[in-house]
């Protein structure tokens, strides 16, 4: 008989799926690209492409330096997660901001939002959103005055750098066929400060099929990556097909935004506009790409639904009564903080478990 041969020992299972974290992250990167194309179409190379590239470069560089300083493997800087953070941060700033703003935001996002917590998987809140919150708190004027209207880059003479534009003028501009004004949400919010009649007229103007079409195609003021709804949906579809995205959070979030937008988002009870609520601001970007950040959202199924609904409700409350016209990113940040608790209280019923009813 032949000599006995020996082998490496290891724990079961000895089989793994071909999935990898890297692949998951790069799938998200791919899914975010159509919206980048849309952003370039709307806001130009300088307005969209440059900030995104700078932001990504800054995120990856910050990640690299952190890993280096902590003596960890620097290859993780290219695992795709820093790229995702960089893209998302840039997507959440207005197109007209100075170049260093997204760079600063990205560095903050990576260093404070991610690596300070222990790196990939350990952070409590979405780093990109924390970066954005930091920019909002530190540079409020730049972050809310940097709006440029869609297509302005192709036609600078038209000159509707619209940060100061009174909300009453918000309309579908014929020459660009776009909803302009700082953002449609700002207009919606400002309408509550007007007298009833005027405000109602503004809102009526925003709740038209023409406006919805413009919102869908991104022809409105907004952050770099949030306006191209159709292209964002295309990316989300890709993630669904690749099984990277699970439906619960986006559906619960957008459903809640629509529902509470209708219930609470208007001048009176049940007088809001559900569709407008979903199509404006960062709801679609947030619902599909930020609330769904795996690290910072619940792992249980019921938890994901609670998370989505909670974030949707907070979004609408901030939009209607908060200090900012848009509440998407703060709502997600708040729910991020609640995630460990949600996971704890939504442990699924184990197979064969009989729940005691108190």
């Amino acid at each position, binding site marked *: *008989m032949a000599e006995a041969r020996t082998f490496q020992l290891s*724990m079961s299972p*000895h*089989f793994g*799926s071909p*999935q*990898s974290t890297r692949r998951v992250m790069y799938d998200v990167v791919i899914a975010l690209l159509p919206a980048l194309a849309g952003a370039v179409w709307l806001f130009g190379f300088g307005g969209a492409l440059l900030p995104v590239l700078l932001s990504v470069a800054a995120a990856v560089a910050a990640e690299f330096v952190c890993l280096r300083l902590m003596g960890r493997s620097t290859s993780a800087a290219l695992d795709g997660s820093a790229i995702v953070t960089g893209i998302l941060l840039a997507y959440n700033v207005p197109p007209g901001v100075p170049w260093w703003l997204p760079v600063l935001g990205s560095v903050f996002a990576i260093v404070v939002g991610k690596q300070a917590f222990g790196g990939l998987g350990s952070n409590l809140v979405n780093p990109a959103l924390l970066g954005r919150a930091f920019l909002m708190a530190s540079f409020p004027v730049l972050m809310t005055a940097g709006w440029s209207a869609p297509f302005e880059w192709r036609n600078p003479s038209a000159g509707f750098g619209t940060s100061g534009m009174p909300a009453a003028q918000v309309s579908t501009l014929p020459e660009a066929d776009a909803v302009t004004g700082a953002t449609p949400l700002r207009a919606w919010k400002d309408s509550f400060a007007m007298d009833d009649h005027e405000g109602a007229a503004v809102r009526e103007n925003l709740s038209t099929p023409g406006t919805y079409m413009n919102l869908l195609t991104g022809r409105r003021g907004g952050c770099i990556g949030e306006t191209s709804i159709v292209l964002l949906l295309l990316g989300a579809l890709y993630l669904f097909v690749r099984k990277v995205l699970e439906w619960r959070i986006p559906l619960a979030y957008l459903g809640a935004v629509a529902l509470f937008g209708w219930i609470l988002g208007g001048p009176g009870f049940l007088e809001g506009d559900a569709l407008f609520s979903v199509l404006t601001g960062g709801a679609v970007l947030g619902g599909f790409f930020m609330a769904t950040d795996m690290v910072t959202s619940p792992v249980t199924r019921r938890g994901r639904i609670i998370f989505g609904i909670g974030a949707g409700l907070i979004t609408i409350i901030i939009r209607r009564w908060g200090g900012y016209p848009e509440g998407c990113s703060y709502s997600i940040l708040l729910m991020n903080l609640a995630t460990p608790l949600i996971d704890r209280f939504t442990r*699924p019923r*184990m*197979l064969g478990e009989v729940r005691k009813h108190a």
Partner: protein
Amino acid sequence: MTRLRTFPGGAHPDECKELAEKRAVKRIPAPETIRVALCQHLGAPSTPVVKKGDKVTRGQEIGSQNGFISLPTHSPVNGTVAGLEEAPLPHRRSGPVVVINTESEEGGPAFEPWPDFESRTRAELIERIKLAGVCGMGGASFPTYVKLSPPPGKKIDTLLLNGAECEPYLTADHRLMIERTEDVASGMRILARALCVDDPAVGIEDNKPDAIEAFGKAGIRVEVLRVKYPQGAEKQLIKAVTGREVPVGGLPLDIGVVVQNVGTAAAVALAVRDGEPSLRRIVTVSGGGVREPGNFDAAVGTPFSALIAEAGGYGDDVARLLSGGPMMGLAQFTDAVPVTKGTSGIVALTSKEARRLTEGPCIKCARCVDACPMKLVPCLIAVNSEHEKWAAADELGALNCMACGTCSFVCPSDRFLVHYIKRAQDMIRASKRSKEA
């Protein structure tokens, strides 16, 4: 065909069955030296009743039953006892074995054959199944007679045969079902009689249409199961077929169900109908690391190396040698270990087939949560285990993990979830014991 039955959760590893599923079972003679483990079954090892130099005959008892959860062990060959020793085994680091030098394998039945088993009493049948040393052939090797002796007050109404064989690569049960349908069918009738159950059924995944057809022809109720891992796990099989859930911390018999592997049923048929103790079994030898994968009928005690040789020897690249399939099988340090009654397969994985052994951080993607067939939250149990928070792991239901490996399989970060969870289980059990003491 009726609708496919299934259970919640699970995953779809590559089946890799094509390597061996068409290879008819080849009976191989017992090699010159065999090592028959005295602890092939779960529970207390048999007490050796032979010593070095003794002549043994095929079917002779070489170890006697030692307690309720225990079984006798028999010699699969005629030969001489070369010694008793502690030797490495496939399912545990080491255990007591009887080394036998084989002379021949001839010989009649060890017990009186009962082709008329219908006229035997339940007690007679159960006693025979015990004396023949029949234990579960599907993996856990639990003594079969114990499962047939429910404590008073427990009424069994359902008998399910497990022909799911959901582990990748393994085809031993599949071949058994199509080549020895009659043995399985007889075993099923004997088991049903022993349990006083009408209308037993066999559950088979729908990737084995020939087996489904064979049982259909034999007039046996077949429950067709959707191909999904771990469909062959006892609780998942019960859930899929009956819709019942085995209570947490309980046993199938608590809900009136007994599950037996198809291989066990065949062993029962041999024991009762033919008077043959459990001496041999079908073993799949497969994986990219063997040259000619196949299914072999081998005597217990046959070293893995001999079966690998039957399968054309190792290929150029063998990263891992497993007893069992790649999901729950145990990695072997040496191929000198002997086949036991529970050895369903020997799988040699190439480095490409084997799972990566570098783990990344948990990105909380929840794939493990969605896939866990026990509906646990593996990622959180693992994190608590890593931080040695045993009480928290216990609260999360760590003890209900059956180590099926589905969670680690789907994890994009290749986390060693099963390892962490098992560690938590050990610590939780230890602390419960010390509290009781």
